[in-house]
């Protein structure tokens, strides 16, 4: 296994997948100018599902999950999140964004606010939670990501791994029902990857619906119940992790897997 951070032999924890649909994407297309980034995407995510999206760079995987919370606009097709249609209506967009948490490759913490302020900002201003309550909730989640003692520091004083865990806590403070991860570990030093992945695994075990763009194949094997392979803006193959890794169907997938696992 290419990834030393995760023990691949751990059996995936039993996590319930309900029949309820969390995200429904039908015939979605997106263009950057005349460049067709996403082509006919169809994807249904059930509540409690953990999906790992992988693929070569430029295959549109980040764009796909950024479309889900309207950071990018799609031009064709429909996206429904938790029963809310992602349309041009601002109220719907606001609703979806407060339901969906997102972690970025470069964390995107706000450097002028302390860790605690980072975590309480959105609950206070978007959810209108009283400050006291928001702080209590924030401390709860900071404890969960194991950095409550850093609450009054600024992001710049933390290591990359810690910052990413704060970013996860910050999203959790909004009590999201779905979490999106956009390459959360690719900007980290190797020794910090594990701590972030551990946090993510813990989250998965609690039954969070997760869509995760990552190259951590160990993580995919450990927690995902579906792996999606994208290339040239299309979903090329999706399958259970075991099948996906041991018995890939498409040539593109085989090539990709051989490239990332071959060394």
């Amino acid at each position: 296994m290419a990834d030393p951070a995760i023990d691949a032999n751990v059996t995936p924890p039993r996590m319930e997948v309900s029949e309820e649909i969390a995200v429904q994407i039908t015939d979605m297309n997106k263009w950057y100018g005349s460049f067709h980034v996403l082509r006919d995407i169809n994807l249904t995510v059930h509540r409690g599902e953990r999906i790992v999206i992988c693929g070569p760079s430029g295959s549109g995987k980040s764009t796909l999950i950024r479309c889900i919370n309207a950071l990018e606009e799609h031009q064709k097709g429909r996206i429904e999140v938790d029963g809310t249609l992602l349309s041009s209506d601002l109220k719907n967009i606001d609703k979806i964004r407060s339901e969906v948490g997102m972690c970025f490759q470069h964390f995107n913490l706000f450097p002028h606010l302390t860790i605690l302020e980072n975590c309480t900002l959105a609950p206070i201003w978007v959810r209108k939670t009283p400050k006291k309550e928001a702080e209590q909730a924030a401390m709860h989640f900071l404890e969960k990501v194991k950095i409550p003692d850093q609450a009054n520091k600024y992001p710049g004083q933390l290591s990359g791994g810690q910052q990413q865990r704060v970013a996860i806590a910050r999203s959790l403070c909004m009590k999201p029902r779905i979490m999106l991860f956009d390459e959360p570990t690719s900007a980290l030093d190797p020794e910090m990857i594990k701590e972030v992945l551990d946090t993510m695994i813990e989250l998965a075990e609690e039954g969070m619906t997760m869509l995760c763009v990552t190259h951590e194949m160990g993580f995919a094997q450990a927690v995902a119940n579906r792996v999606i392979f994208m290339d040239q803006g299309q979903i090329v193959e999706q399958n259970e992790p075991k099948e996906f890794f041991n018995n890939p169907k498409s040539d593109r997938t085989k090539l990709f897997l051989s490239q990332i696992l071959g060394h």
Partner: protein
Amino acid sequence: MSDTHAQTVGYVRDTMIDEQPAPVGQTGAVKWIRENLFSGVINTLLTVISLYVIWVVVSHLYPWLANSIWDAGSLTECREIRDATVGPDAPAACFAVITDRWQQLVFGFYPPEHYWRPVVALLVFLAAIAPVLFQGIPRRALWLSAAAPFVLFALLWGGSIWGPVAVALGFVIGFVVYRVLLPLAGNLAAVLGAIIVPLLYWLFLAGPLAGALTSVAPIGLEYVQSKDFGGFTLSVVIGVSAIILSLPLGILLALGRQSNLFIINKISVAFIEVIRGVPLIVWLFTASLLLNYFLPPGTNFDLMLRVIIMVTLFSAAYIAEVVRGGLAALPKGQYEGASSLGLDYWQSMRLIILPQALKISIPGIVNTFIGLFKDTTLVVFIGLLDPIGLSNAIRASTDWNGVYWELFVFIGLMFFIACFSMGRYSLYLEKKLQREHR
């Protein structure tokens, strides 16, 4: 050690070599001079030329300064003293003009018994900007900073204190309206209400209210007319009020220029480019010659206010460019992070983007202020008495007819001290920001 053979056995050092002095001629003053001043033909030539230039300047300036006379009532008296002490035709500066007239250069025609007011105003101003410039001070102090403009106005111009109070009340009303409407009618309505209600208040209520309060409790300082302002007081008042008043407009323009709404963007660009494309002096003439054309007939207000309005618009365009630089310097992830949490445009601007962008922009804003402060000397051409205008006025008096250099030296030195120290401060800030960014 000579018996160590590299190819056979490993080598282990058992005694450490002590530090030894460098060879003679490689250290000390001689080496420094040789390396720094005479390290080649061109370098030597440069050194000689520089020393010559320094010598020429010093040999002319030194006797003039060394013989300077500080205590005399007029230029003729100065000359008599010079003839008596260092002899006729000897160069001698007559700084007596400064000791005689410095109050005028600093305060203009401000009533002498009220000189304390500009001084206190300066102190209030410094105290008010401290929370902005230094991070150690609690954020709550910013509320005092917000009140400072009204205090400064009341101090400098005087008159009944109810005028500024009534105006300030408008902002409080706006804030209250916003807070009341926000849960009732939503964000947009609250913002509109917070703009419209205070405007109506200022137009119809503020004047009578101030009048009524004044008649009930006539508190206030003696009124000082704008035309009595002069010298460095005038420069500082124009410069500081223009910068502070231009900040809100400048930020809006910067946001407008960043916006992808076509019309908003083009309006901002047009405003900024038109203002920046035309020299300040043309704008000043516009203020003095044309502003009355653009206002309802019969409106007439004093020249200083007109100048402040014009200079505010002028510096808003420059501030906008500085702030735009700050906005552009923020990584895109900050905008995305904010919107992924569900913050709307104004929330993310107010809470995330602007606090960071403005912090990056402070050095640029300080530099804009330095430029503006120097440019306030241009108001002399439309008849306001800035330091240079006052130097002409002083020269026009019979006592000091013919004094040039002493006044220039004094004015130049004052400007230099102010601008140089502000420049150093902004440089220090820039360096600090760079360190923090790493």
